[in-house]
C-alpha cells in the first residue's frame, strides 16, 4: 500500500462508521419507548456494518469504477468504499424521491450503476450476478473484474457452490469475499459450518483460497491485492475469507441474548478503527491530518443525512413506476 491509499482507507472507515451512527440515531427516532419497526423516519429492518469496515475498504481500495461489486443485506460500508453517491444512498435509506431508486428499495436494495454497485436481501443472491458482471467484462475483452461480498453464513447456501464452480469452470475474473463476523443472525459459524475456514472450500473449485486472520485493512488490502491482480490478468477467481467482527446486533432491535457475556465488550476493545488510527499515528502520520480527514468524512455524512431528511417523500403513484424499464437506459 502507499500512504495516500491507506489514508483513504482510514477515511472511508471513519465515514462508514459515522454513517452507521447517523442512520442508527435516525432509525431509533419514533421507535421509542416501544420499539416498532414500522415507525420513525426509517422503517423496516436495519443491518449495520460496525466493525466490518476493514473488509470493505481493504478490498475496494483495489477497485476501479468499472469494476462491479455485489453486496448483501448489510451493505453500507461496502457501498461507501465503492464510492456510491452518499446523498442518493442516504435518501434511499430514508425512502425519499431522490434516493437511488426513488425510495422503492430501501437499505437492502442499493443499486448505483454509476459505480457498478448493487446489493440485495436474499442470502447468496449476489454471487451469480458478480460472476455475470465478470463474464460480461471477459467476453468484451475488458480487464474490469467483479467482487462478490457475502457473510460466512451465506457460504452454506447452494448459490455459493453453484456460483464458485461456474466461475472456476469459466475462469471468470471475480473475487469472492466472505466477511466472517461469526454469526448468521443468532447462529454461530461453528454451529452451522462443517469446516473452520470457508477459504478451505476454495479447493472444491480448484481456485486459490486465502484466509485473513486479522480484521485489519492492511492485511485485507494485501490479500485482496493478490486476488484482484489474478482476476485482472485472466487467472480466474479467488475465494477470500476475512475474520471480522459484528459490533452491533444482527439488525437494530436485536437483544443478542445468544452472544456470550462480555463478547461485545471484548470486541469493542479491538475496534479496528481506533487500532488503525493508532498504527497510522505511530507511523508518524500527522494527527492534524487525521483529524482533518475525520472531520471531512463526518461532514460528508452530515450533509448526506441532512439532504435525505429534507428530500420529499414519494407520491403514492410513484409506486407504479419502473416496474419495467421502458427503453434501454443510457
Amino acid at each position, binding site marked *: 500500500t502507499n500512504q495516500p491509499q491507506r489514508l483513504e482507507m482510514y477515511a472511508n472507515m471513519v465515514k462508514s462508521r459515522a454513517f452507521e451512527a447517523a442512520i442508527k440515531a435516525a432509525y431509533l427516532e419514533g421507535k421509542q419507548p*416501544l*420499539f*416498532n*419497526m*414500522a*415507525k420513525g423516519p*426509517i*422503517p*423496516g*429492518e436495519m443491518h449495520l456494518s460496525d466493525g466490518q469496515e476493514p473488509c470493505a475498504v481493504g478490498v475496494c481500495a483495489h477497485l476501479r469504477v468499472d469494476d462491479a461489486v455485489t453486496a448483501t443485506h448489510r451493505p453500507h460500508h461496502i457501498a461507501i468504499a465503492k464510492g456510491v453517491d452518499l446523498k442518493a444512498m442516504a435518501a434511499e435509506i430514508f*425512502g*425519499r424521491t431522490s434516493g437511488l*431508486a426513488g*425510495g*422503492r*428499495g*430501501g437499505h*437492502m*436494495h442499493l443499486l448505483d450503476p454509476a459505480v457498478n454497485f448493487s446489493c*440485495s*436481501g*436474499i*442470502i*447468496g443472491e449476489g454471487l451469480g450476478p458478480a460472476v455475470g458482471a465478470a463474464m460480461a467484462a471477459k467476453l468484451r475483452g475488458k480487464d474490469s473484474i467483479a467482487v462478490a461480498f457475502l457473510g460466512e*453464513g*451465506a457460504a*452454506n*447456501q*447452494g*448459490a455459493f457452490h453453484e456460483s464458485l464452480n461456474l466461475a472456476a469452470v469459466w475462469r471468470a475474473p471475480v473475487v469472492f469475499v466472505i466477511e466472517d463476523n461469526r454469526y*448468521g*443472525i*443468532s*447462529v454461530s459459524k461453528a*454451529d*452451522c*459450518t462443517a469446516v473452520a475456514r470457508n477459504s478451505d472450500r476454495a479447493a472444491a473449485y480448484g481456485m486459490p483460497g486465502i484466509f485473513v486472520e486479522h480484521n485489519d485493512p492492511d492485511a485485507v488490502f494485501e490479500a485482496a491485492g493478490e486476488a484482484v491482480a489474478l482476476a485482472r490478468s485472466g487467472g480466474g477467481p479467488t475465494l477470500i475469507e476475512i475474520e471480522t467482527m459484528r459490533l452491533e446486533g444482527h439488525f437494530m*432491535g436485536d437483544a443478542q*441474548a*445468544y452472544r456470550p457475556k462480555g463478547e461485545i465488550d471484548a470486541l469493542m476493545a479491538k475496534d479496528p478503527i481506533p487500532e488503525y488510527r493508532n498504527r497510522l499515528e505511530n507511523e508518524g502520520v500527522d494527527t492534524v491530518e487525521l483529524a482533518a480527514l475525520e472531520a471531512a468524512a463526518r461532514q460528508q455524512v452530515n450533509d448526506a443525512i441532512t439532504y435525505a431528511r429534507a428530500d420529499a*417523500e*414519494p*407520491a*403514492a*403513484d*410513484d*409506486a*407504479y413506476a419502473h*416496474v419495467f424499464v421502458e427503453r434501454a437506459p443510457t
Partner: protein
Amino acid sequence: MTQTTATRKLTIAKAMAEALSQEMARDSDVLVMGEDIAKLGGVFGNTAGLLDQFGAERVRDTPISETGFIGTAVGMAAAGLRPVVELMFVDFFGVCMDPIYNLAAKQSYFSGGKVSCPMVLMTSVGGGYGDAGQHSQCLYATFGHLPGLKVVIPSNAYDAKGLMLAAIRDENPVIYMYHKALQGMGWLGTEPGSIAAVPKEDYEIPIGKAAVLQDGTDITLVGLGVSVHHCLKAAKAVAGEGVSAEIIDLRTIAPLDRETVLQSVRKTGRLVAVDDDYLSYGVSGEIVASVAEAGIALAAPPIRISHPDIPIPFAPSMEHAVLPDAEKVAAAIRRALA
C-alpha cells in the same frame, strides 16, 4: 370451544409456540428445525421456549440451507417423524421450492399413498412495516396453485393454535403462513383483533373449512389472514350506513372451501374478495372465478382487492398507498351497493 375451558388472551406467536410445545410433549416424533428457531426462539417468536423445554436434539437451528434442511425434513417425515420446519420469510421460497412442491407435495402420489409426508412448513408473510420487496410478500396463490400441499393462514390466535395442532397431525405437508402484522410481536406492531382468548387445552381447527365470522344479508366479504381484519373494520364502518355484511375467513386456501363462499353469495348477491398477495392469478381472483362459474346471479359485479402487480415498495408513502386496508374495502362495499 366449550364455556368451561380455561382461556387466556394470547398473541398468534404465543399460540403457535404453545401448540408446538403441547404437541412436542404429547408426541415424541415431533421436532422443529429452521434458522434461528432454537437459541433465538424464532425471529417471530413462534418457537420461543422450545429449546429449553425439549433440548437441542428436537429443536434444531440450521445452516442457511433451506433446500438442504427442507429436503431433510421430507426424509424425516417419510421415516415417520413429524418435522415442523420454518422458512423465515415466504419471500425465500425461491431458493427451496423444489423439495416443497416436487417432493413433499408429491410423495403420496408417487407412492400410491404408501409414503406420507407429515411435515409442517411455517413461514412468515406480509408487509406494511417497510421491509421492502424481498421481505414483505405473501405468495398465497403461489403455494395454493400447486397440488399436494395444504395451505392454512390464521387470522387470530385461537385459529393459530388449532390450525397448528391440526397441521402437525395431518399426514400431509401443510404450509402454515403466519402474517407478520398479526404476530403480536411488539416490534412489528400488532393488530389487536389477532389477539384472542385461547384455551389451554388441546383442540384442532379443521383444515379446509372456512369460518363465517359475521352473518349479513347485503354483501359477502371474503378475506384471509390480515385482510380478515380489514373486512371486519370495513363492515363496522358501513354498518352505520345500514349495510349488513357477511364476513368469511377462508382460514385455508388449499383445499379451498368454495361451498361456504357460494352459500353466502347466493344469499347476499354481492362479493368483495380481499387479500394482500399480488392481484393477477391470485386468491381474490380465484374466489371471484369460483362464484362466477357457479352461475350465481349477482346484484353488482364482484370486486377484488389485492396488492397490485408491482413489487412491494419500501417508502411508507407508497407502501401504505398500495396495500389493501379497511378504507379500500369500505369503498368497495359502497361501490357494490351504489
